[in-house]
């Protein structure tokens, strides 16, 4: 378990990380699935996987930052629902364009995320309680105001945007680079930049590692929370637009309920619920393992109930490995602490 990808990290150290084990597991899983199903390791299936898991993956990139800060957010699916609904209703009624779509979608996402932060910081209530409450508040308001009505007939410029045929094979199958895949890469790149390349990101790691110490060094927890939850909301807004385009419709109630799968993927990737631990690579691998497994089981013709079962089992195994590894490290630490004192006595004696 390592929290950073500092430049000093070399392969030797990387080999002892949770991410490395997860990478081995992912490669192993891909190898097994490739042998079992001829359709798994194809470019088409790869693009399909990226497209269909883009929504979860983007949210995982945002949630990672929240977990690193020592907080948690599960209201992001409700934020995403509100953002996409309001943005598209506005665009459809006011005949707006891209600018309006992004301004409203991302603006609402960021604002609702920041509202979470303000509640957590000022009421000093744990983030899990605040975000459960706000999930219900956002979602309830949306259902009330929208009467649960779905949106169809969205503008063509939105439905058909960001889609480039990379090439077409001999059987006339197009290979497409789409908005979802681009969005996925953008979100992971943003989270990586934020966490590893900005002073705010390093303060977020510090805050998650030891909030008291962070305050003593002079880091402003209030402001950091605003960034963290605002960023989560921003990502939720972006992901919601990508998802609306993929689904070609907006239903206010299809996103809520997927938050725990995203949380599971990030935790599987090694992020700690107590804060300060977690990497972008880990989050990517966490999403990848779950995506490959679910997809592989479908290709093998296994019932979708088993998919849920295996999801749970994989998470259990992964989290136990992390816990076991931490215990082992602590035991090793105790020996390290004891040894020099003993050695000193030996030298003096």
């Amino acid at each position: 378990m390592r929290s950073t990808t500092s430049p000093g990290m070399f392969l030797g150290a990387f080999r002892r990380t949770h991410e490395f084990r997860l990478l081995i597991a992912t490669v192993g899983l891909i190898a097994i699935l490739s042998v079992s199903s001829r359709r798994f390791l194809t470019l088409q299936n790869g693009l399909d996987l990226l497209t269909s898991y883009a929504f979860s993956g983007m949210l995982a990139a945002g949630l990672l930052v929240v977990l690193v800060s020592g907080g948690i957010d599960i209201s992001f699916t409700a934020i995403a629902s509100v953002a996409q609904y309001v943005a598209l209703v506005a665009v459809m009624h006011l005949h707006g364009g891209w600018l309006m779509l992004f301004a409203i979608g991302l603006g609402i996402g960021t604002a609702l995320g920041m509202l979470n932060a303000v509640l957590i910081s000022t009421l000093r209530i744990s983030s899990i309680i605040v975000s459960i409450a706000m999930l219900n508040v956002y979602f309830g308001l949306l259902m009330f105001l929208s009467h649960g009505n779905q949106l169809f007939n969205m503008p063509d410029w939105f439905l058909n945007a960001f889609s480039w045929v990379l090439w077409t094979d001999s059987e006339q199958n197009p290979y497409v680079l789409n908005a979802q895949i681009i969005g996925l890469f953008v979100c992971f790149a943003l989270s990586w930049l934020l966490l590893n390349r900005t002073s705010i990101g390093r303060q977020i790691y510090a805050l998650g590692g030891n909030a008291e110490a962070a305050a003593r060094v002079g880091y402003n927890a209030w402001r950091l929370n605003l960034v963290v939850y605002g960023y989560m909301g921003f990502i939720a807004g972006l992901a919601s637009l990508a998802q609306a385009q993929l689904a070609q419709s907006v239903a206010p109630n299809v996103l809520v309920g997927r938050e725990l799968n995203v949380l599971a993927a990030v935790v599987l990737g090694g992020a700690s619920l107590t804060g300060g631990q977690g990497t972008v690579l880990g989050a990517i691998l966490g999403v990848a393992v779950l995506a490959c497994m679910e997809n592989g089981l479908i290709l093998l013709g296994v019932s979708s109930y088993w998919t849920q079962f295996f999801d749970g089992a994989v998470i259990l195994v992964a989290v136990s490995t992390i816990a076991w590894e931490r215990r082992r490290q602590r035991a090793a630490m105790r020996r390290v602490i004891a040894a020099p004192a003993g050695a000193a006595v030996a030298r003096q004696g």
Partner: protein
Amino acid sequence: MSAFLELRGISKRFGGVRALDNVDVTVEVGEIHCLAGENGSGKSTLIKIISGVQPPEPGGHLAVLGEALHGLTPAESIRRGIQVIYQDLSLFTNLTVAENIAAGLHRGLHLVSWRAIRRTADAAIRRIGVDLDPDAFVADLPIAQRQLVAICRALAADARLVIMDEPTASLTRREVDSLLALAHELRQRGIAVMFVSHRLDEVLEIADRVTVLRNGEKVGTYEAADMTGRRLGELMTGKSFDYTARDAREVAGETVLAVRNLSRAGDYSDISFTVGAGETLGVIGRLGSGRTELALSLFGMNPPDAGEVAIRGRTLTRHDTAEAIGHGIAYVSEDRLTLGLVMQQPISSNITLAVLEDLAGRNGLVPDRRRQQAVTHWIEELGIKVSDPENAVGTLSGGNQQRVVLAKWLATEPSLLILDSPTVGVDIGAKDGIYAIVRALAAKGLAVILISDEVPEVFYHTDRILIMREGRLTGEFLPSRSSEAEVRQAVDA
């Protein structure tokens, strides 16, 4: 020399409680100054005022390098070169050494320069000439090295005065020595060091001056050269403690514990000894000598590979804690906070934790009246100072917490009590109370093993001393027939 920090007429009141009353302290440039006082004497309040965390009452005067400062904030205090290293060190264990040292570089929003972080860390590490790997994660470092990281961080922030709160509490003697050497080094460079502690005899050797606080008032500032540990203890408590080694006395009681050829690979080997009823046996050794591992084995938490443990002639077979408790062994751990107490739970629940089964009636429920009786009995018996037994244990002082742990185990009516470093983090007055309790228990026939790394503790408060080194028993002393120096020599040999 000139004054770096000057405090005059500093008072602080919390509600009706006067935490500091008209205190004057001056810290010279490049001076090693000790601030001594028991828990509750006002040391922490004084640190908070110096670091700008709390404002003093109006009328107090605070100046740095002759410039009077009003409305000092934490940021201003840091800017003036004042750095506090708290007892918990306030490090980010999930980050590397380099990032911890350079934590002050992350201000506002800007891109991170890993090279600048590394440069800052390397410079600080070089300045004090210690061996620290900047790429290591703080979580992987032992306490003594973590302390060096905290000191480096203070230096990286251009400290002119480093205040260390209880810096020696969790260090071995050797680590304390290197810390003292480091303080000396800082003084050479014109950086003042203030040690704040209630265990100062070891720091006295290198200090220039000592200021003693008692009940929020300044007792005085003294030249360290004229000060002794005993005199300091008297000034801090206002009482005098005059211990003498115990007379040799026949411990007539039957053998309670017999250990024969006990070994555990990597921890200790070939340990044999006995403890009789009413006897207090001291086991002294450094950290890593195997003393704690041995104690844990007796208590069933660290099963031995070979050898035999017998209580009143009955040999233990399973080596688990249930068996140990069943045979009347009680263990008060060195780390009472993690092993001994449930901090958020009431004092009363903690006292009765180990005897719930004995208190329970036939239906398996514990009658409230019997529970209350047990709680009241032990609070009186051990003189625990509580306003309400239903308060959380965490609200008590260190000494009183230690008594609650004792009460918890004494309630099981043990025949052997193992005390592992019972006075770590406890101030002198409270220490004396614990020694008195141990004496009284032994007089009632309880067999006690007192494990410690402080020579005076075992020398003045036990009947017999075993020396432990590198996992073996290497010597035995009777305090009445030897000297403190002899024992110290045997431990350090």
